[in-house]
């Protein structure tokens, strides 16, 4: 591995043996007498952190302390106290933040799922008011793991704060082409539209078209179905009145497809129709029951209890509509 600190383990000089640190008394960890959650630290770890505690206690904001925080952070990048103190020193010494930005990229590369390193990066970008490298950095990380939550969080923040929406939809589209099931990419699609054009009638129309085409490719892809629902949240008519969607679903059903997500969608359409009243209530109700039964017993058995609950819920709703408050009858 390219971790220089472990490669040089033999060449490592302990802080306690460094003449330039002679003036500092190391501060051992105040653990008490009992061993509780006691980590058997290596000699190097203990040495570095004994000196880190010393500079932290003294609030020594110096070049050597800055170097020390680097050693401490590399031994445990999840130590938020180390990072916070490092930022305090960077500020106090008025350090070149672009150099630090470079360093943070290396450490993110090594620990892409660590909260602290991403937060460090974000503070640096805030201080610099320069997010010109953030899209590239997050793309590098997402190349390795297209669903890395931290990378998406950083990317969304940078895009929103510095208005970098311009090419994002194209990037999202590329990711969905690479992996149609990448839910993070679908979520990003929603994020971009929500923060730019908004879900206007026109946008809704073209997004519905886009999504239905993707569903055609993989009908059991939950991400696309969920996105479709997300779109219809913005349709004032609701879930069940959009003709394009309704026709598509009915055709898919008639063609014999029994994707659980299709059936679930049809159930929710029935549910909505029952809530709104009107139409052939008896037919809607029978259909909802039939769909829920086939989901519960055949197409989505892991969710049997949910589908039974839905069937009952819709039935109760319909009964509540037709006869005003019937006496409750526990069956």
């Amino acid at each position, binding site marked *: 591995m390219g971790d220089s600190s472990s490669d040089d383990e033999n060449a490592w000089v302990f802080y306690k043996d460094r003449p330039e640190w002679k003036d500092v008394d190391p501060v051992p960890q105040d653990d008490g007498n009992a061993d509780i959650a006691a*980590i058997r630290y290596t000699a190097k770890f203990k040495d570095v952190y004994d000196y880190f505690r010393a500079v932290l206690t003294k609030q020594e904001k110096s070049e050597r302390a800055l170097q020390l925080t680097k050693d401490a952070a590399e031994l445990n990048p999840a130590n938020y*106290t180390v990072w916070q103190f490092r930022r305090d020193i960077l500020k106090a010494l008025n350090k070149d933040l672009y150099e630090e930005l470079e360093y943070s990229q290396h450490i993110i590369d090594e620990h892409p799922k660590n909260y602290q390193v991403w937060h460090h990066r974000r*503070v640096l970008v805030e201080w610099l008011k320069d997010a010109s490298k953030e899209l590239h950095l997050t793309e590098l990380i997402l190349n390795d793991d297209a669903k890395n939550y931290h990378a998406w969080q950083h990317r969304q923040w940078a895009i929103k704060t510095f208005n970098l929406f311009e090419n994002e939809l194209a990037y999202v589209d590329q990711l969905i082409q690479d992996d149609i099931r990448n839910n993070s990419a679908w979520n990003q699609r929603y994020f971009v539209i929500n923060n730019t054009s908004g879900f206007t009638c026109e946008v809704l129309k073209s997004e519905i078209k886009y999504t239905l085409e993707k569903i055609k490719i993989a009908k059991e*892809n939950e991400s696309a179905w*969920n996105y479709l629902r997300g779109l219809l949240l913005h349709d004032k008519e609701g879930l069940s009145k959009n003709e394009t969607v309704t026709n598509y679903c009915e055709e898919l059903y008639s063609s014999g497809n029994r994707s659980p997500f299709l059936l679930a969608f049809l159930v929710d359409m029935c549910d909505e129709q029952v809530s709104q009243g009107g139409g052939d209530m008896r037919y809607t109700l029978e259909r909802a029951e039939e769909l829920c039964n086939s989901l519960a017993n055949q197409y989505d058995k892991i969710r049997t*209890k949910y589908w039974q609950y839905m069937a009952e819920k819709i039935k109760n709703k319909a009964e509540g509509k037709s006869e005003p408050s019937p006496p409750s009858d526990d069956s």
Partner: protein
Amino acid sequence: MRKQNANISMAATLRKFEDLKNEKFNEEDQITVTSEEQIQVERSVQEIFRSFRLRCDIDSNLPKLLRWEHIQALKHWLTFLPPGYKSLDASRTWICYWILHSLSLLEVKLSDDLKDSLVDFLKRCQCSDGGFGGGPGQMAHTATTYAAVCALCIIGTQKAYDAINRDKLQQFLCDVKTEDGAFCMHRGGEIDIRGVYCALAVATLTNISTEKLFEGTAEWVISCQTYEGGFSGCPGLEAHGGYAFCGLASLLLLNKGHLCDVDALLRWIVNKQMKFEGGFQGRTNKLVDGCYSFWQGGAFPLIHSLLAQENKEPKWLLFDQGALQEYILICCQYPAGGLLDKPGRPRDIYHTCYALSGLSIAQHSIDGEKLILGSPENKLAKTHPIYNIGPDYVLRAGSYYSKLDIPGNEPSFL
């Protein structure tokens, strides 16, 4: 008829192995990274299910909770962690909580000496300016504070309760609160929905909560509910099991559960249970993971209570409790003790805690009914689905701290 009797225990039955092949991922000729990874996990799980069935034919007591092994591993970890655990050096109060909660689920009593040692250590993690750090000498952090407070409530002695400096804890929470009602993880730290949950959990447990402290918080949490129905870490991000738990539990602690779209949340979360593996995934189209047994599973009793408020109370918890127990007991137990994310991954303390917590949730239905897969000896103690510590510990902390004044609540003329 609804069963109203408490303590009804039923045996859960294993799903039929032959039926499970219909539950596998349908790739639909679209080979992508997601489908390849999913199919690989299903293969390894299938292999484990298959060999399990063979052993089942000989031993009708299976699947068996490796109670003794887990207890041994946990007790060992409580005092001794190898150098590889250095990455958790800023999470040592978490280690205490994970182990203490796991042991309490396994119904292990702690000696008085051990309790005193634990309190002594946790006090050393408390900061002079309020809250707890991950270890002695570290800054206060909302998550390690949550862990420390929960650990102290589990210990539950007078010394443990008195260890918490409540005035300063409240000051810490005030300091990390943001203008829009959210909470930072530490002074100068990142903001996400974990901060809200941890702040609310410790403030309510120790009776330091004020209306002002959580002004605007419910609205911020609601802004994290996504179009999928789950909650994200911050507004705009993807719905995620860990954050969804934090969001939902926070709303319930604020008594504002009705503000979220419960139907959408329910729809999202039921779909996070994997039809083949039986466990939960954290996000749409991601892989099963033992820790989501709690983060997702634990949300069901909470959703249940919300639906009950709306007079839509279901007759049962709305996930497949037996299938989740299958995944945890058959796929997530390490033979020498401890539990794990998924087959092939190493065991660790975090997954031990949350897989056991999820198992407890799956075993205990509503109204005191139990649904136990395998021998009745597999039964774990109950957990409180909001705080994830034993319900008795919540009650006892509540009755202790309710006798004390809420700091900062005296009349002010400023």
